[in-house]
């Protein structure tokens, strides 16, 4: 008699597969980095970095900015998510659509835009004649400012993840609560929030981890006020690169790893002991009549959008139209020279556009496959091995891009053993680095969606005779379509203007948009940089509109900005 499979819930190859991928994408690069660090320590002793007060201040700053930023993100993101999902306000699609875009404005650009917008020489304020006096201090150069910007930057992450959670709430659970006499706010607190908790927590933790790893914003807002966070500290360490530096990097990476494992712990606590499986049909949650508040809510949302999208974007446009910094925008100074330079002369921009879109797309869809595998596995398998996997998935995204990049250079600069081909200098090393870096982003929404699935739905499919791939394709994926959509959109948007990872990995022909924008800006052609940023935002908006055209043919809820 033939042996029966030990476990009936997952194909045997699934766990090894997941382990393998996590190993390549996370364990290997981190391991390599630590190895070099250890090596350096052996050669020239323990690095002073742990002893220096600066380090610990940076840790504290990283922590506080990440936490505060996360709070801002949650506030903004959930406000939009709830308003757009549960109330009867108008123009929901437009609002949702617009709320995606701030993420598309590269953090350094957002930061710059805000600095300019609020600074004495803001083309906007100048043109309005409201520019504050010369030399007035810049309020954004502070922990508060950094947090605020981080918050804005990452609010869409929370929004998307939470939407996924909300989509899964069965309508009748809310109806039952209403009949029980609970007021809308009460229901929000007692029913909606708890049921959407996996989504919310997913969003929050992405926001937190993004905050830890973000370089662009603290670089522009922190350094002027000499406020250092771990990524900027790492960067300053690199300025004088010596034998010790690898040791420093290793140590700092470990610190960061510790911080995000703390984050993971909190997340684990928050999720534990609850049951989120939705019993029965989950349909669109009913909307609450916002009645008199409708106008207020709408106004508030649009106002927020003005500050986080319209204003920075306009500032960006403005500075792309003037030849140099500080030149006021007016009939004499305005010129489209920057655009024509970017579009017609700079061949590199087209390359970069193609590269970035390819990389972002490949990363987004590649990771989706893997996230589904991990999430599914996590649902059916507990134990230390699984905890380790989820932990490892988290870390690369939390590391400053430049550190991760260094790890990958260390790993791939030399030809691969056995096969003997060199990935270094090709676009593939960037792709691998992206896969590694955005693993966490892609995984979060998907796994939260799996948490909420009614197990019976898969069981029914199995009894119908559908094997793993079959039921994945026909039943599970469609059911988590909103999460899958969110995951893809998230990764795509983030990867599309990613800078810090590709900054070290690009070479001739493999420039990414982030790199090109940064280099232009760094070598003084701010107008070109702004122009390109504008174009990137427009391109992404264009892509999203394109999707909108095919919305009919896609599974329901895939497009995050649609209900």
């Amino acid at each position: 008699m033939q042996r029966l499979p030990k476990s009936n819930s997952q194909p045997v190859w699934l766990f090894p597969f997941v382990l393998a991928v996590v190993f390549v994408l996370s364990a290997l690069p981190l391991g390599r980095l630590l190895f070099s660090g250890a090596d350096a320590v052996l050669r020239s002793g323990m690095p002073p970095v742990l002893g220096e007060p600066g380090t610990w201040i940076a840790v504290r700053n990283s922590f506080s900015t990440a936490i505060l930023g996360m709070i801002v993100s949650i506030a903004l993101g959930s406000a939009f998510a709830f308003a757009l999902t549960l109330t009867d306000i108008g123009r929901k699609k437009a609002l949702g659509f617009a709320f995606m875009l701030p993420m598309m404005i590269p953090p350094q650009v957002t930061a710059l835009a805000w600095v300019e917008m609020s600074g004495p020489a803001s083309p906007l304020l100048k043109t309005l004649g409201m520019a504050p006096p010369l030399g007035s201090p810049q309020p954004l150069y502070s922990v508060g400012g950094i947090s605020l910007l981080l918050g804005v930057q990452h609010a869409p992450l929370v929004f998307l993840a939470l939407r996924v959670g909300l989509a899964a709430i069965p309508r009748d659970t809310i109806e039952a609560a209403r009949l029980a006499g609970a007021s809308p706010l009460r229901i929000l607190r007692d029913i909606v929030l708890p049921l959407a908790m996996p989504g919310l927590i997913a969003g929050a933790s992405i926001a937190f981890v993004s905050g830890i790893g973000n370089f662009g914003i603290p670089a522009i807002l922190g350094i002027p006020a000499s406020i250092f966070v771990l990524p900027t500290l790492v960067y300053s360490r690199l300025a004088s690169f010596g034998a010790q530096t690898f040791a420093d990097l290793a140590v700092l990476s470990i610190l960061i790893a510790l911080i995000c494992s703390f984050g993971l712990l909190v997340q684990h606590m928050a999720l534990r002991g609850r049951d989120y499986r939705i019993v029965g049909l989950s349909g669109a949650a009913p909307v609450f009549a916002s009645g008199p508040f409708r106008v207020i809510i709408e106004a508030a949302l649009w106002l927020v959008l003005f500050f986080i999208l319209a204003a920075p974007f306009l500032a960006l446009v403005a500075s792309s139209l003037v030849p140099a910094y500080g030149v006021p925008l007016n009939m004499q100074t305005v010129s489209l020279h920057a655009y024509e330079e970017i579009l017609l002369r700079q061949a590199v921009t087209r390359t970069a556009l193609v590269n970035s879109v390819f990389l972002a797309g490949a990363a987004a869809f590649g990771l989706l496959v893997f996230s589904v595998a991990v999430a599914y596995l996590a649902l059916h398998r507990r134990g230390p091995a699984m905890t380790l996997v989820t932990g490892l998935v988290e870390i690369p995204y939390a590391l400053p891009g430049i550190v991760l990049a260094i790890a990958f250079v260390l790993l791939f600069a030399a030809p691969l053993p056995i096969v003997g081909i060199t990935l270094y200098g090709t676009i593939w090393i960037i792709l691998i680095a992206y896969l590694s870096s955005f693993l966490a982003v892609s995984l979060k929404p998907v796994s939260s969606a799996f948490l909420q699935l009614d197990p019976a739905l898969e069981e029914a499919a199995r009894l119908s005779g559908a094997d793993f791939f079959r039921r994945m394709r026909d039943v599970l994926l469609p059911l988590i379509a909103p999460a899958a959509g969110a995951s893809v959109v998230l990764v795509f948007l983030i990867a599309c203007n990613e800078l810090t990872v590709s900054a070290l990995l690009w070479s001739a022909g493999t420039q990414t948009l982030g790199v090109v924008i940064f280099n232009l800006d760094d070598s003084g052609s701010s107008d070109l940089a702004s122009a390109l940023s504008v174009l990137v935002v427009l391109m992404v908006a264009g892509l999203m509109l394109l999707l909108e055209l095919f919305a009919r043919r896609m599974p329901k809820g895939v497009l995050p900005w649609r209900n």
Partner: protein
Amino acid sequence: MAKLILNHLSKSYGGAGAAVKDVSLTVREGGFLALLGPSGCGKTTILRMIAGFEQPTDGSILLGDRVISDAGGVLPPEKRNMAMVFQSYALWPHMTVAGNVGYPLTVRGISGEAWRRKVADALSLVHLEAYAERRPAELSGGQRQRVALARCLVTSPDVVLLDEPLANLDRHLRASMEETFREFHARSGATMVYVTHDQGEAMALATEVAVMSEGRLLQTAPPEEIYARPEGRIVGGLIGQGAILPLPLPQDSPRLVEWNQLKPALAGESQGPLRDVLVRPEHVAADPDGAPMRVLSSTFTGERHVLTLDAGNGLALPAYSASHRAPGTHGGFVITCGWIL
């Protein structure tokens, strides 16, 4: 408490036909209405409109003399002080059983000892004391349904809406639940609307029975009456067992027809237009000097066997028999009475 009035209520889900068409009925204050009808005829939709989840496309709903729903707008459910057992239970997966049952109390600001006592009482009504700390996902189907029941009965609502509240319970639990409903109804004096497929239940509990079909209300009457004197083929066919025999009967015959009239009619010896006659199996009795009929089939249902007889020219007629009778055998039967629909 106040009486519940639906007038000319209609609801269309946008799709093809309307789910509820021009339904008007009144449940008197403290009344107990049973809503019967084939699957998909619009019962749940009516409950959902009463609860305020769906807006009528036409007509209105009044509680007392207050309009609570019409095509113009609806009073939000949370302001209606109603309670409902959902066909889908609609339990909150993140709360324990106790939490689910106690939530309406919590919302009403009851807490501490009072809360615990009321919840414990409700749970003991449905025999789930032992499961207070479980989560819905860890319950059996029937247990979930009972939690939904307890949640519905824990407060003292003006109107109680029950959508097949006992569908997943075994007969003994049903009996005790029916008892519970009676007590609750007597005690709270709430107006109850009860959707069920089990006519025995409906008859046993309700002060009035309303029969629906395809979104329309066909007849509303007290149980005995609707059973004894159904109006029209559909109601006749829906309520209780029985066969509808088209028989030639004199124009002037009373609607309740006796054997002496039925016998010739069956034999085809009497004149008159064909009338639909409803014959209940309990009115078909084996009787040597009755009309000879062939047994088509005989199925055992526990307490007795249900026979299907050939009442002549292919009319099938159900009958009860204490003992099994082989299909194909013949026997004499009388129809003690029939009802012209």
